[in-house]
C-alpha cells in the first residue's frame, strides 16, 4: 500500500528547507512549522513562569522586572511575531483545508487557476494583516523599551 508519509520521512528536514521550490506558500509552510515549534517552547516556559504568581506579589514583581531588559523585550516581541504569523497563516490553512478557498473542480493544468485566483489573493490579504499586527506589536515593544 502506498504510504503518503514515506517520501516525507526520507527527505526529513530537507523537505522543509526546499519548500520554496513550491512558491511563496513553501516558505509559509516552513515558517508555520518554525513558529509553531517556537510557540510551543514558549508556552512550556510561560506555564512555569506564570505559575510563580502563587508565591505572591514580591516574587512576581521580581520576575517581571527581569522582563524589562531590551533582550527579553525583543524575545517577547518575537513571540508576538510568531503568534501573529501562525494565527493568520493558520486561518489561510483552515480555509483551504475546509474547502472554502480551493475554487471549483477543474482539469489540473498548470498554472492552477484555483490557486492563482483564490488562494494567492487570500494569502496576500492575510500576510498584510500579519504585517499590520507585527508593526503594531513593534510600536508597543518600543514604547516599553524607551
Amino acid at each position, binding site marked *: 500500500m502506498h504510504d503518503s508519509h514515506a517520501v516525507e*520521512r526520507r527527505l526529513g528536514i530537507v523537505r522543509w528547507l526546499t519548500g520554496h521550490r513550491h512558491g511563496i506558500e513553501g516558505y509559509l509552510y516552513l515558517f508555520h512549522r518554525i513558529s509553531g515549534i517556537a510557540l510551543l517552547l514558549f508556552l512550556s516556559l510561560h506555564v512555569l513562569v506564570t505559575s510563580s504568581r*502563587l508565591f505572591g506579589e514580591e516574587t512576581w514583581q521580581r520576575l517581571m522586572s527581569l522582563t524589562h531588559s531590551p533582550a527579553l523585550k525583543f524575545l517577547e516581541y518575537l513571540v508576538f511575531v510568531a503568534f501573529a504569523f501562525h494565527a493568520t497563516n493558520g486561518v489561510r490553512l483552515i480555509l483551504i483545508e475546509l474547502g472554502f478557498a480551493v475554487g471549483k473542480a477543474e482539469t489540473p493544468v498548470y498554472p492552477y487557476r484555483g490557486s492563482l485566483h483564490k488562494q494567492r489573493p487570500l494569502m496576500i490579504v492575510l500576510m498584510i494583516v500579519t504585517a499590520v499586527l507585527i508593526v503594531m506589536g513593534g510600536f508597543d515593544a518600543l514604547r516599553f523599551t524607551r
Partner: protein
Amino acid sequence: MTHDIKIKYWALNIASALVLLVLLGAHMGLMHLPGVLGHINPDWSEPLAWAQVSGRGSSIAATGGYVLLLGLALFHGLYGLHTMLTEFFDGERAARRIAVGCWITGIALFAIGATASVIFHMSLLQN
C-alpha cells in the same frame, strides 16, 4: 492509530485552532498590545501589574478561560509536534513512543498550569 481516531484528532485540532484564534488572540492582544488597547480601556495599559494579575486571578471567568486556553493550546501545539515527529520517525513503535511522550508532556504542563491558576484563584478569594 486507526483512521477514525486520526480523523477525530484532526477535527479536534481544527476546532481547537478556531477557538484559540479567539481566546489566544484576546490574550496576546491584551498582553502584547497594551499601548494600543490602553487607549480603549486604561485598565489594559498595564496588564502585568500585580493589581491586574490578581484582578484577573480572582475572576472565575478569567481563571476558567486560562485553563481552557492552556488545554487547547497544549493540544494544538502537541498535535502539531506529533505530526512533525511522525514524519521523521518511521514505524509503529516510534509512533507510539511519540504519542506517549506528547501525552505525558501535555498532561504534566496542563497539571502545573491549571493547578496554579485554580490555587491562585482560591487563595485570592480567601484573602
